[in-house]
């Protein structure tokens, strides 16, 4: 039932003469779970099954903001096949949970604060029975006024989304409907503005994006004999879940045993709890295993989204293209519950200048409580919205100065040593100008690719595609550029660590390393690189990746581009300790046979102890014999600081990542249809631990940015705060026909602070992809386009 232990053989068996360990850091080794995933054997959270299991179903609110007057479950309870119908009154312990703020009800009590909030729960012997029973629950609502935007949230008589706030930000925010506010002041923007020859102001709107991971929320809770529960779920952070689940079940953490089930993508959407507590409550109540699987409709309500944002920017520049100052205000809609809104605010503020040198800035970012769907983590985390706006500003400034947009950016590009608006120096490579140079230097894709020899046009290469809407009439090409900056790792003083347990022993005459971490493999390929790191550090071929669970210390979240750095770092560190122990055993056993044991620097390579000069001293098998060495250690990145709540100053970030894009688009200007022809990316990855995976991450991130540019948006009706398009019919994500060729050019400029010099790679490409596409569409059409996504009506003037 649980995911299986995976042994990872790579390359040829170790031979006596072989010195180098194959499949180590820097090689494109293949995924250890690849075979299981292509044969359908890989057990995702929705594939869990248990004898006698029941199916859980949630009843969600049909209105966005209302008092719950009454709940009548009697008809649902009387149905055949129904084992339990629960409301908040049946909850065993804590009624609220949350990562940073415990503001989210397990099941709504008193009132509901957004459309689709869980109100009641059913367990039945068939999923359809459970759905029908849920539909029989009668809830009477008394609707309340809606908070839907900044104006309604901060109006003098505004109703409070959360009364009696008592969280770590409630003391300093100017209004209880503001989750968190982060100003940043550096230099003197008003004074610097006097030096500007041009000033550009813009107002930008970023739509609500969904992570749209393909594997909906799901899992299995199995009640245990000790009164606890065994939980198999897909999540980004087991230990964070555990900390939230246990109090709601009234159980000590050791009685909630969590095992990672297969994860069908995440992108931030699995950072928060979804069905974990609810399935556990049903399992404990019924004494039976309970499986819950959201369908796509429910998934749109089952996780937080990317914050929609309003961004107000002012930039100035001199005639020769030097930026003088920047002022901005970023308003992020956090929706009904805080989730990670406060951290997103910190990110948006601290990264709002972009990868540019501007010494005089005034920044304000706020996150609102509203009755819109809750928003939280998604790939890019606050930096995405800012990048969309400041890159539009860069193009406007370049146009006003009659300068090339790439050259203008290069003049102002930050580099190693630049001081961030927070006062933090950028102390590792920041090749912003070089990344732009690289994407610009690429040859352009050929024009009019739809033309074929002698035959009619290949409409598949045209905007509108197989809809056959154009044979090239009215089609105009445009080119656009963008570059962005993203932080890596958890910031603002968070104690961010990971844990790795490494065991080394000899099995059948071969040294074998076992890597046990709680890292969430969500598709990014962490399991691949864990084996690579163990091979490099311990000189073994055989590495077993133990399933991720809570029997080992926390790995932290699979987010913020941090896992290769953090859990990779933890594995490297634990392996180094294991290596020292192995060498110590070797010295005791064989030290007297060869002086190098005492004098040389010793490594483990190719299954042997070797000197740094390459001389083999003994096999690991002979050193260890039947002894096993095991180490479990926590590992931390360098500490960070909170941002000052008044000035925004502080060394808040761990590391920065940079990517640049060039987009080439073709627009059918008559119908407003866009085809992206090529979306080239250049990115500094620090060190490509697995080049194949690196390129895959960059292409995937780029495509999510493309989606936001031209099609993706959760549409919330401003009159009702209800979600209008919770399906893949109405919320579109890019298909293979919408996605262009994505050539990737990566640099490897090592970060001296990071293990192997790595730089988090997953998020940066999601930033610059969107504004590059927007810039290209503006270039093709001459339109201003200040909102994502660009829909046809925005291009044809029929809005």
């Amino acid at each position, binding site marked *: 039932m649980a995911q299986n232990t995976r042994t990872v053989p790579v390359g040829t068996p170790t031979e006596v003469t072989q010195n180098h360990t194959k499949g180590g850091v820097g090689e494109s080794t293949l995924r250890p779970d690849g075979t299981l995933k292509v044969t359908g054997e890989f057990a995702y959270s929705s594939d869990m099954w248990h004898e006698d299991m029941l199916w859980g179903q949630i009843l969600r609110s049909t209105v966005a903001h209302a008092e719950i007057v009454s709940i009548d479950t009697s008809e649902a309870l009387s149905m055949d096949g129904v084992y339990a119908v629960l409301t908040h009154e049946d909850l065993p312990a804590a009624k609220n949970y949350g990562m940073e703020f415990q503001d989210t009800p397990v099941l709504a009590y008193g009132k509901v604060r957004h459309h689709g909030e869980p109100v009641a729960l059913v367990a039945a012997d068939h999923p359809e029975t459970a759905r029908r029973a849920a539909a029989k629950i009668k809830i009477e609502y008394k609707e309340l006024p809606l908070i839907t935007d900044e104006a309604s949230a901060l109006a003098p008589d505004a109703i409070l989304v959360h009364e009696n706030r008592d969280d770590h930000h409630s003391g300093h925010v100017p209004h209880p409907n503001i989750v968190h506010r982060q100003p940043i002041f550096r230099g003197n923007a008003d004074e610097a503005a006097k030096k500007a020859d041009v000033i550009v102001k813009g107002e930008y709107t970023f739509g609500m994006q969904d992570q749209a991971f393909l594997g909906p929320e799901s899992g299995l809770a199995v009640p245990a004999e000790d009164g606890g529960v065994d939980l198999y779920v897909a999540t980004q952070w087991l230990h964070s879940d555990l900390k939230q689940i246990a109090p709601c079940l009234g159980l000590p953490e050791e009685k909630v045993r969590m095992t990672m089930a297969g994860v069908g993508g995440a992108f931030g959407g699995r950072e928060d709890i979804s069905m974990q507590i609810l399935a556990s409550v049903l399992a404990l109540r019924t004494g039976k295993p309970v499986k819950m699987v959201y369908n796509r409709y429910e998934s749109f309500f089952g996780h937080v989204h990317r914050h929609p944002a309003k961004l107000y920017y002012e930039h100035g520049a001199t005639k020769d293209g030097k930026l003088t100052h920047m002022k901005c205000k970023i308003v992020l809609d956090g929706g009904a519950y805080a989730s990670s809104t406060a951290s997103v605010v910190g990110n948006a503020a601290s990264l709002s200048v972009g990868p540019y040198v501007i010494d005089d800035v005034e920044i304000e970012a706020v996150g609102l409580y509203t009755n819109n769907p809750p928003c939280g983590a998604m790939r890019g985390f606050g930096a995405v919205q800012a990048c969309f706006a400041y890159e539009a500003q860069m193009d406007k400034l370049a146009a006003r100065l009659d300068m090339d947009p790439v050259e203008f950016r290069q003049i102002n590009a930050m580099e190693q040593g630049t001081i961030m608006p927070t006062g933090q120096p950028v102390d590792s490579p920041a090749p912003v100008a070089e990344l732009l140079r690289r994407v610009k230097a690429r040859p352009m894709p050929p024009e009019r690719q739809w033309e074929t020899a002698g035959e009619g046009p290949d409409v598949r290469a045209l905007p509108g595609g197989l809809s056959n809407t154009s044979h090239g009439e009215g089609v105009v090409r445009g080119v656009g550029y963008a570059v962005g900056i993203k932080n890596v790792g958890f910031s603002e003083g968070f104690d961010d660590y990971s844990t790795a347990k490494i065991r080394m022993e000899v099995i059948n005459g071969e040294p074998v390393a076992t890597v046990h971490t709680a890292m969430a493999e969500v598709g990014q*390929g962490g399991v691949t690189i864990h084996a690579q790191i163990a091979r490099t550090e311990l000189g073994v071929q055989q590495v077993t990746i133990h399933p991720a669970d809570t029997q080992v210390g926390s790995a932290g979240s699979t987010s913020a581009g941090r896992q290769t750095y953090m859990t990779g770092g933890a594995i490297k560190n634990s392996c180094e300790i294991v290596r020292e122990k192995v060498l110590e055993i070797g010295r005791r056993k064989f030290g007297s046979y060869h002086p190098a044991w005492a004098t040389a620097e010793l490594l483990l390579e190719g299954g042997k102890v070797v000197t740094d000069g390459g001389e083999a001293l003994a096999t690991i098998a002979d050193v260890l014999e039947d002894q096993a060495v095991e180490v479990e250690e926590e590992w931390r990145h360098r500490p960070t600081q909170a941002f000052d709540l008044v000035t925004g100053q502080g060394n808040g970030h761990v590391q920065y990542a940079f990517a640049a894009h060039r987009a080439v688009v073709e627009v059918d200007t008559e119908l407003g249809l866009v085809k992206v022809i090529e979306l080239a990316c250049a990115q500094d990855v620090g060190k490509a631990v697995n080049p194949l995976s690196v390129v895959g991450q960059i292409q995937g991130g780029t495509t999510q940015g493309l989606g936001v540019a031209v099609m993706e948006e959760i549409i919330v009706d401003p009159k009702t705060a209800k979600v209008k398009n919770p399906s893949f019919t109405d919320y579109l994500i890019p298909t293979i026909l919408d996605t262009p060729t994505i050539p990737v050019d990566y640099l490897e400029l090592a970060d001296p602070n990071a293990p192997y010099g790595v730089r988090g790679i997953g998020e940066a490409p999601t930033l610059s992809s969107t504004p590059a596409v927007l810039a290209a569409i503006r270039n093709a059409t001459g339109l201003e386009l200040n909102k994502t996504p660009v829909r046809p009506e925005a291009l044809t003037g029929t809005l």
Partner: protein
Amino acid sequence: MRVNFTVNGRRQEADDVWEGESLLYVLRERLGLPGSKNACEQGECGSCTVRLDGVPVCSCLVAAGQVEGRDVVTVEGLAEYAKQREEHGGCASGACGTSLDAAKKWEAKPGQDSQTGEGVELAPIQQAFIDAGAVQCGFCTPGLLVAADEMLERNPSPTDADIREALSGNLCRCTGYEKILDAVRLAAARQERQGEAV
């Protein structure tokens, strides 16, 4: 109701099926074949793609009752299906697959690792997806494999536009599709090379 049909060459009998149950539900929850994935339940994402009498369909949109007496191939049977096609010189009808006799005699082959799948015989398209890095989270992979394999059967030398068209009903959120294209190109090239060798 009871539904009798063939899955991956093997006769199957599903009992107590509700009228509203989809083929996907019956495969996953009644026949122990969870390889086909449920990601949208409305025919938009292609994760549940199987072949029904040779034709790729979204199994979430096929009512279980509709498959009475028909042949279904899922990702779990893809390797065997491809092998049979190879041995019998192509199988445009979709009627090949494991024979009932062969299925009854089936047993795990020695040398297979039940935990990692190492040593399992794969269809060329499955191997190509692994080799090209076309698998990340893997949730879309089963549907893509069935669709891509069917396309290569019809069109052994596809252009990029052909590949994009054939796979346009299969959503992937992780890869940006580039490596999926690589995988299909790789499988086509290997197929061609093998054809030349014969």
